[in-house]
């Protein structure tokens, strides 16, 4: 198991390196400097600014410096916000993003697995169709369309929940964003779960278990659940990534001060330092989450470790 974890970690390194390199050069190749303004800066000041941010060095030198600092955990300066470095801004936003993302992850898994098992056990009965229809809507209707409608219904007309913002971080503020973020993934997970559960329930060892007189509930929970979960677990890695990037738009809609908002603001302001820093941070986080999920997968399915 440790050997597997180590091998998996080794394969993650080139991915991270390529990602960082690609982002760095794409942003450096962007037309127009970060200091282009409506009124051109005096050349002396511009030269000073460029020197301060090391933009006057040759490109490969900038790249190597950036990599070196990144290794030390420094994500670099923001070109627009002077008071905070990229790392500090991310540290401020991260708890919000992780709270919403983590809760959404849990919710998606719980709803998805439960709905999937239900659908497999009561195939093509009334409620299965209702669930399927609801999930189809969740899959197809994008969250930036669902969110405003939910805001109008629950926030404005019924006034049960706040329309947006973070407030004191108590649960009423979290309900809508977490739900909107989780729903499409709950839909995908339940589809996977339903399919694999049906397959497992048709297999011989389940028939044997039933023939031995083990009750339906126990068969499903103790015997069928674990093998049926494997496709779901392998989807969790990508899902964690989608949730993280999906939270960008959810944070924007609900006015949650997470990293996603900083990222959007930076991209709109053409703050290349901040954009680079946040993208690199997102990628590191996603690679890390994928790694964790892969390890969980290997724990669940011993065949994976051997490969």
């Amino acid at each position: 198991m440790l050997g597997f974890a180590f091998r998996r970690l080794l394969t993650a390194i080139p991915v991270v390196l390529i990602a960082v390199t690609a982002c760095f050069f794409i942003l450096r190749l962007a037309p127009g400097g970060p200091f282009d303004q409506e009124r051109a800066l005096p050349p002396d000041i511009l030269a000073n600014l460029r020197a301060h941010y090391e933009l006057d060095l040759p490109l490969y030198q900038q790249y190597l410096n950036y990599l070196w600092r990144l290794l030390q955990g420094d994500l670099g300066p923001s070109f627009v916000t002077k008071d905070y470095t990229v790392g500090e801004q991310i540290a401020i936003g991260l708890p919000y993003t992780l709270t919403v993302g983590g809760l959404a992850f849990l919710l998606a898994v719980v709803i998805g697995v439960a709905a999937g098992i239900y659908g497999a056990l009561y195939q093509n009965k009334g409620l299965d169709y209702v669930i399927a229809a609801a999930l189809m809507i969740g899959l197809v209707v994008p969250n930036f369309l669902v969110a405003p409608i939910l805001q109008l219904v629950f926030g404005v007309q019924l006034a049960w929940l706040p329309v947006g913002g973070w407030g004191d971080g108590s649960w009423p503020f979290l309900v809508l964003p977490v739900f909107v973020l989780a729903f499409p993934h709950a839909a995908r997970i339940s589809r996977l779960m339903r399919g694999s559960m049906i397959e497992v329930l048709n297999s011989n060892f389940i028939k044997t278990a039933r023939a031995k007189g083990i009750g339906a509930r126990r068969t499903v929970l103790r015997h069928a659940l674990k093998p049926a979960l494997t496709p779901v677990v392998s989807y969790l890695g990508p899902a964690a990534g989608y949730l993280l990037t999906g939270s960008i738009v959810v944070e924007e809609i609900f006015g949650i001060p997470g990293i996603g908002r900083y990222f959007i603001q930076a991209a709109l302001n053409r703050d290349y330092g901040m954009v680079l820093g946040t993208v690199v941070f997102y990628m590191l986080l996603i690679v890390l989450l994928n790694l964790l999920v892969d390890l969980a997968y290997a724990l669940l399915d011993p065949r994976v470790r051997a490969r």
Partner: protein
Amino acid sequence: MTLYVDKREALEPFAKHEADAVQGKPRSLTRDAMRRLFSNKAAVVSLVVFVLIVGTALILPPFLPYDYETPDWAAFSAPPSVESGHYFGTDQNGRDLLARTLYGTQVSLLVALIATTVSVVVGVLYGAVSGFVGGRVDAAMMRFVDVMYALPYILFVILLMVIFGRNVYLLFAAIGLLEWLTMARIVRGQTLSLKEREFVEAARASGVSTFPIILRHIVPNLVGPVVIFASLTIPEIIVTESFLSYLGFGVQEPLTSLGTLISEGADVLEVMPWLLLFPGATLVALLLSLAFIGDGLRDAFDPKDR
């Protein structure tokens, strides 16, 4: 269980086969798939809805009393009404929402078409070359795809947005360049089995070189996966475009797209709900119909089912 079997029904498949044989038309893969597709009710209804939306978006605009960018000075923020001719109402600038929705649909579809075409072309060529050449080249090319897969693609799209800024069509060609990974993987897998077939061997024996074989003999056999992929990619790109436009990166004024309209409508949902509901409903109808068409195509082309 009924013992009575309708004779005509039971013999129908034979009759069809007989008819085909008489007409001398071989049942090709594509014809077979089309027949299956048209017997799928959800897919057929969706196809009709899709054609209706696209047809309306393309044909109707010149016949409307208003165009998408000229304000009607007599009707600002007007709710939908039949008498004034603003069937979907107008926005804060007095522009007719029906005309804008149709125009936005056109832009969204065009963008999706460009990006899908780019991703199909790149994916098919990349996958076919990788699978056909094989060996080290294949390993290296697929390793690259694996690495690309691990990267969050929406972040790259936003990076590209920052760079390409306002040139929407260039931008979506670039999105297509990021979307080809799945296509490349599927095509490679298909190519690996196709290249062992006799007709490839025959072509090779008669001296055709690698690239013409790929283009003339491998690619035409990939119709199934390509069609399915395209039908699933188009809605994905429509959503990506709407997502970007929603965040303020995508299509810019005075151009418009469904995403831009939804974003504008979401801001004033409380007072002018029609500004969100009509473009939103159009988007959902478009996405739902494409989803069912994609599902139907997958069933129709699925080799496991045959």
